[in-house]
């Protein structure tokens, strides 16, 4: 599984350009399921068929990662940019980004009176080009770059870019691998464009038309020095979502997850996320409604180039999903 995580987080896959990630996941999932296909929005849908009258359960993890989009190239070859998803200008200082073709860029900023005046429009990307022409030979307006960072495993903890939500993708893959028999028809859906408004999940949920949905994504923690108060910690197990800005977990799904975790002795914690959304927000409002919950992997420093998760939590999430999928629903 660690190898899958490493591969996934080092891929290039900003919102709207998830193809590379989709290709990789297609190869990995193909032997594990009965069918894999991509839809109009680029969502990858992998189906493990169930018995004739099986309920359809949709698991969703998003493939896309945040990035920056090029909006201007000046005569000296400097690039201006805007954000794709939630990127803080302050996080970008001193970072490197990578474009689809492998071009590396670094961030610089105009002179500022005070650092708090920093915003994207005062920043630029330098790819080492000396003229507009030289820059344009590599980069076009509209191209998107992602954090350039390698995977690091230290003890039980993974440090990497785009764990949000490649770690969710890894959990889905591992769940598919470990799931032997299920009374359900399981849709492993790797969604697109989550970071700009839960978009891929919306059209995927419409076409899958599931009976139940479970989103798998990262969530914040409150276990770092002087952190925002939140009762989720790294290393304390799978987080079962109560609510976020996009969804209030259906009580029946929440109870199912909690009761399964208790019965199987899987470590879990309850997640009340005050800000932020997940694909569950889109899934539960699809058509005439889909009871939906979410299993979250606790993560620190989300949306930075160095997000951190605990492999024990990841394993707990997989165990919980496998246990839920192996058993009849209620």
């Amino acid at each position: 599984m660690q190898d899958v995580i490493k591969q996934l987080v080092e891929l290039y896959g900003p919102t709207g350009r998830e193809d590379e990630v989709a290709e990789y996941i297609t190869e990995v999932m193909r032997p594990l399921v009965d069918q894999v296909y991509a839809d109009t929005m680029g969502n990858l849908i992998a189906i493990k068929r169930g018995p004739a009258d099986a309920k359809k359960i949709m698991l969703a993890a998003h493939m896309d990662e945040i990035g920056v989009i090029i909006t201007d190239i000046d005569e000296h070859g400097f690039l201006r940019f805007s954000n794709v998803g939630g990127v803080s200008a302050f996080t970008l200082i001193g970072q490197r980004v990578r474009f689809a073709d492998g071009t590396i860029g670094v961030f610089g900023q105009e002179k500022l009176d005070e650092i708090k005046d920093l915003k994207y429009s005062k920043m630029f990307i330098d790819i080492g080009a000396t003229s507009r022409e030289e820059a344009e030979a590599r980069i076009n307006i509209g191209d998107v770059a992602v954090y350039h960072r390698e995977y690091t495993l230290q003890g039980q903890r993974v440090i990497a870019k785009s764990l949000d939500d490649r770690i969710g993708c890894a959990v889905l893959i591992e769940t598919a691998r470990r799931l032997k028999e299920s009374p359900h028809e399981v849709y492993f859906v790797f969604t697109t464009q989550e970071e700009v408004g839960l978009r891929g999940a919306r059209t995927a949920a419409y076409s899958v038309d599931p009976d139940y949905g479970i989103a798998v994504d990262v969530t914040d923690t409150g276990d770092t020095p002087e952190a925002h108060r939140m009762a989720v910690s790294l290393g304390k197990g799978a987080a079962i979502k109560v609510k976020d800005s996009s969804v209030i977990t259906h009580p029946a799904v929440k109870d199912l997850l909690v009761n399964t975790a208790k019965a199987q002795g899987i470590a879990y914690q309850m997640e009340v996320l005050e800000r932020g959304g997940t694909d569950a927000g889109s899934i539960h409002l699809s058509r005439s409604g889909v009871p939906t919950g979410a299993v979250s992997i606790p993560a620190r420093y989300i949306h930075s180039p160095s997000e951190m998760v605990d492999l024990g939590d990841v394993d707990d999430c997989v165990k919980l999903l496998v246990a839920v999928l192996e058993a009849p629903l209620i």
Partner: protein
Amino acid sequence: MLLARLSEAAGVSGQETEIRDLIKKEAASRPGVELKTDALGNVLAYKQGKGHGPKVMLTAHMDEVGLMVVGVEDSGLLRFKPVGGIDRRVLVAKQVLVGPDKIPGVIGSKPIHLQKRDERNTPFQWQELYIDIGAKDKKEAEKLVPLGTTTIFATTLQKLSDEITIGKALDDRVGCYVLLELLANDYDCDLVCAFTVQEEVGLRGAGVAAYAVTPDLALNIEGTTASDVPDVPEHGYATSVGKGPALTIMDRTSIPARPLVEKLQEVAEKENIPIQFRRATTGGTDAGKIQLTKGGIPVAGISVPCRYIHSPASVASLSDIQATISLVKAFLRTL
């Protein structure tokens, strides 16, 4: 001139009657067009293809930002609020037309003589502005202007030169104009031109239109913000007037389908049509709602650059409008 009639027609979001009637009349006069309206008041103009192409939906919104009368003072002055995004600083001392009968009015405020010095440092608040239609008292005003009446800017379209025109509501009557011109031609593909309502209050019309039509692909034609003006650095130009139609790279509500954008670039190059990218990622368009309809619809956005949108007078280039028509026409011909 059709563009002038489109620009001058009233059609504040939710009360699009006049602009809708004009569009229906114009669209009906195009060959082979069949018209439908829906529960929200969208106009759908269907035109069957000559061949076996895909079903293509073109959208442009017919509604405009404006004002709504929400109260009447004893003096007969009208209290109002904005419909859609309006910078209240642009409203001061403008002429307006109130309601379907287009009663002339002016937006009044406290004159400079009566202000304290530091009052001038803050913009007038909504409650410090009012519409004066000349009514003598509440009774007279209420008879003429029921609550909920919408109000538009009293701007007539003018050509400043052979190239440049100013008018109100160019966002998105230029798009409506483009669609009406395109309906004059025949295509192999099935074409549905959707003139949508309520874009300015949350992209409300386009979603239901897309749901009803379920096209194979869609292009959204907008009048978008141009910021090629003094004191904005060049890298801050969202679009520039006169440099051709602008292709969206990403905005707040959608990331266009890449194959469509690439195809449009190809067509533009082949036909020698100037294009630019819309380089701002802010703002939302109907494309956002269309893209997420049902199982997903590939969509791209093409915009005519307009300076000073959402104000009484925006500026656009006629050659940009023509180039937009040429680009979409050439694109449709490839399908």
